[in-house]
């Protein structure tokens, strides 16, 4: 499952559709498992009438979690050494998200082969909702 240094090259990409037509129910599920019960994510009345947003929206961490699935499917289980993101735009119910990892560098550190990746997740309108980087251990 793990990536191999000899088979990788800079510029390689891997993309997955991480959600199609995001449902409010999935956002509720994520609130329940993460423990972040902020009404902005699950309470349409509070969010529209008090907070002033057009609808509830996803936790940034739900987008990071879904994007993480693309990453672990690409690099293998237990292989990540770093994963970091910026949330660049909000994610709304109904959104469809595609997450892409791009190989930026292939290197060795302390006898360990590593790959550095840039990450971007975009919605159905091509708007980037998450931008980040990750590093993973790879095989020779």
């Amino acid at each position: 499952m793990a990536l191999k240094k000899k088979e990788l090259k800079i510029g390689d990409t891997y993309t997955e559709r991480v959600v199609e037509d995001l449902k409010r129910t999935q956002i509720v599920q994520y609130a329940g498992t993460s423990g972040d019960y902020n009404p902005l994510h699950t309470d349409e009345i509070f969010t529209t009438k008090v907070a002033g947003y057009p609808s509830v929206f996803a936790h940034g961490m739900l987008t990071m979690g879904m994007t993480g699935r693309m990453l672990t499917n690409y690099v293998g289980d237990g292989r990540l050494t770093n994963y970091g993101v910026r949330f660049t735009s909000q994610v709304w119910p109904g959104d469809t998200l595609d997450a892409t990892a791009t190989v930026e560098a292939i290197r060795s550190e302390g006898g360990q082969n590593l790959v550095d990746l840039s990450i971007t997740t975009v919605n159905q309108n091509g708007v980037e909702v998450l931008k980040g980087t990750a590093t993973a251990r790879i095989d020779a």
Partner: protein
Amino acid sequence: MTAKRFPVESGHILMFARSIGDANQIYYDAEYAKKTEPGTIIAPPTFVQASAQFDPDYFLRPKIGEPWFGSGKEPTGIKRQPGGGGGGGGGGGGLHAEQHYEYHRHPRVGDVLTATVKPGKTWEKEGKRSGKLVFSESITEYRDQNGELVVTARGVGVRTERPVDQK
């Protein structure tokens, strides 16, 4: 998030994986996991965020007998709103701007983690879509039952002057 005792439990990992739409067997099937490189059920990369469940004071969870700012009879259960609504890994109200994890190893079922939070930098920026932005950073160290560092997390929260403009 501060949690004195964050037990990494298989049922919690199963439900967390479902909520992020991840059907990977390594998150729920112990027999399958045995044959993988980690050799056991491990947690998905963003799982430590769920330590909020084990933080007794976590402010984004309704608490018994205390007012809650979500809707009931009225659109909000309290009179005055904290900024745009609270949230985020960086601590304080507002939105979650950034999250970074460094994995020393990946948490596995049976670990009992301790989360210790240290405040980081704060800075300000003028935003086009939401007025003045105040960023604040926090560093959370997750250590295991042996005191070994497992994950270092750096979160950045942002308070906005007004809701983010959608145009």
